[in-house]
């Protein structure tokens, strides 16, 4: 038996999440005496495909055709389920990315599989019964989810499992089969992607700012701080509601839930709905002029002060540190 991992690419390059899911599958394979088969869909060159060997993929299957150059969840789900059947895979692993969220439930439904949506741990395995941890109540709690069907689909949260090298040599195969026409009935008209920006759900460092910044014209220093740190930018809900920043930056219970290594909150009060989305960050830094701001209660480091004075100093100090 093998574990099947679906690896996502962006314009032919694997995302960090691809190496995360392969590393995660390899760790499960070690627990269950299995091998890891990776499936890539869309155009990815052989040179890029073979990178997956480094993280433990023993077989790499590439499904590459013009029809598949853009993500269409129905067509992709069809291929993943088809390959899972061909390979006799009982466990299918993918990233709980924006695309993964549209895929995993379809694949699980096709295979009558139990689905762990947004796993953040390795499974505890007792025969057919696998227990995984996922976050619940928008990161206000964790749930232990037990998967009780012979076939299991696990979607792994970004940043929940560290990439681990585990070099093997892989055989490369191609997948060829007709995709049902109905599965291709969605047309991609346009893809807009900021290539110079770090993607928020996958970011290791997030610089986030709130209403304390007073207006969109003051985000220059936030972007500069993010630049120096190689971080993604984020914001609180009122900030995106007021159109100071795009909705895609809104973190919290009704926005994106992030779990970076470092979350820096600037001029954000720390309302319960905001904290829900950031509380699984490993280290939290809060900069706020109000010493009573609730955010300080969940912070690891804090500076009580005016963001307009502190942030420029922090940029200078970081530049000095990076320059060393």
């Amino acid at each position: 038996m093998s574990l099947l991992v679906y690896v996502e690419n962006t314009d032919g390059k694997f995302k960090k999440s691809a190496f995360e899911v392969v590393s995660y599958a390899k760790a499960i394979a070690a627990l269950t005496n299995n091998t890891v088969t990776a499936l890539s869909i869309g155009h990815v060159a052989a040179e890029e495909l073979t990178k997956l060997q480094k993280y433990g993929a023993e077989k790499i299957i590439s499904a590459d055709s013009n029809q598949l150059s853009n993500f269409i969840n129905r067509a992709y789900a069809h291929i993943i389920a088809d390959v899972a059947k061909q390979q006799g895979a009982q466990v299918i692993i993918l990233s709980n990315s924006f695309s993964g969220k549209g895929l995993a439930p379809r694949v699980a439904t096709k295979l009558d599989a139990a689905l762990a949506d947004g796993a953040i741990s390795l499974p505890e395995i007792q025969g057919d019964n696998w227990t995984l941890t996922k976050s619940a109540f928008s990161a206000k709690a964790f749930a232990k989810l037990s998967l009780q069907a012979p076939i299991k689909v696990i979607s792994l949260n970004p940043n929940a499992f560290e990439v681990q090298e585990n070099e093997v040599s892989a055989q490369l195969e191609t997948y060829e089969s007709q995709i049902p026409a109905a599965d291709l009935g969605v047309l991609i008209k346009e893809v807009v992607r900021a290539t110079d920006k770090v993607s928020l759900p996958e970011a290791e460092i997030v610089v986030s700012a709130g209403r304390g910044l007073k207006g969109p014209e003051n985000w220059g220093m936030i972007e500069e701080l993010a630049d120096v740190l190689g971080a993604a930018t984020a914001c609180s809900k009122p900030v995106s509601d007021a159109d100071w920043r795009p909705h895609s930056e809104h973190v919290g219970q009704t926005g994106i839930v992030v779990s970076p290594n470092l979350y820096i909150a600037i001029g954000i009060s720390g309302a319960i709905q905001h904290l829900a989305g950031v509380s699984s960050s490993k280290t939290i830094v809060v900069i706020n002029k109000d010493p009573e701001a609730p955010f300080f209660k969940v912070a690891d480091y804090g500076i009580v002060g005016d963001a307009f004075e502190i942030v420029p100093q922090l940029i200078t100090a970081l530049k000095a540190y990076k320059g060393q």
Partner: protein
Amino acid sequence: MKILVCISNVPDTTSKITFSADNRSFNQTGIQYIINPYDEIALARALDLAEGGKGTVTVISVGEASIDPTIRKALAAGADDAVRIDAAPKDARFVAKQIAHYAKDQGYDLILTGRESIDYNGAQVAAILGELLALPSISIAKKIDLTDNTLTVEREIEGGKEVLSLPTPAVIGTAEGVAIAKIPNMRGIMSARTKPLTVLAAEEISSLSEIIAYETPAPRGKVTLVDPGNVSQLVDLLHTQAKVI
């Protein structure tokens, strides 16, 4: 045009989440329930699309009679009628199967859900419905437009967006940007009392997974405050102590 909006009854966002002594169930005492905020966005968009006699909006929810007040709120916001499938919602697959069973021969042109519920955060219902009903689905939409029978949808992707075009019928999960939730007015609240709410028996569906325990996150240690006059100390701490830069 017929639109179906799937709504979920969830704890108010200010709720403090606690669990029973055996950690197996969520403590419901004192919790206020609301329409899942993402579902309110779906409902608002559906109402705009159907406005001026262009269509009808039905809301559906899987739950016991205790969720009727939440369903009435959706009727007060403007939905034409409602369906409740009478069962405690076990998980996303259970809910989606119940809704698919109801919707399969009803001829809906558009089925909307929220991108995820803020309690179990599954983000599964739209895609499972799509699969069960053999329809295209988009799980996280930031914008939905409809001309004739063609939907133009903006989908969230890491670091950007995709613009997609697809024919109806389709299933779409909505996120912020699609619409702003509608606040019911007095007339809506009055008329909601008499709008039809049909209660249907649930299908028998066996579960493939189960939540066996909950945990609350470990509290963080006390904050280390850095003197605002010595910002470079923060950089040192992040490097040497937290080891995150």
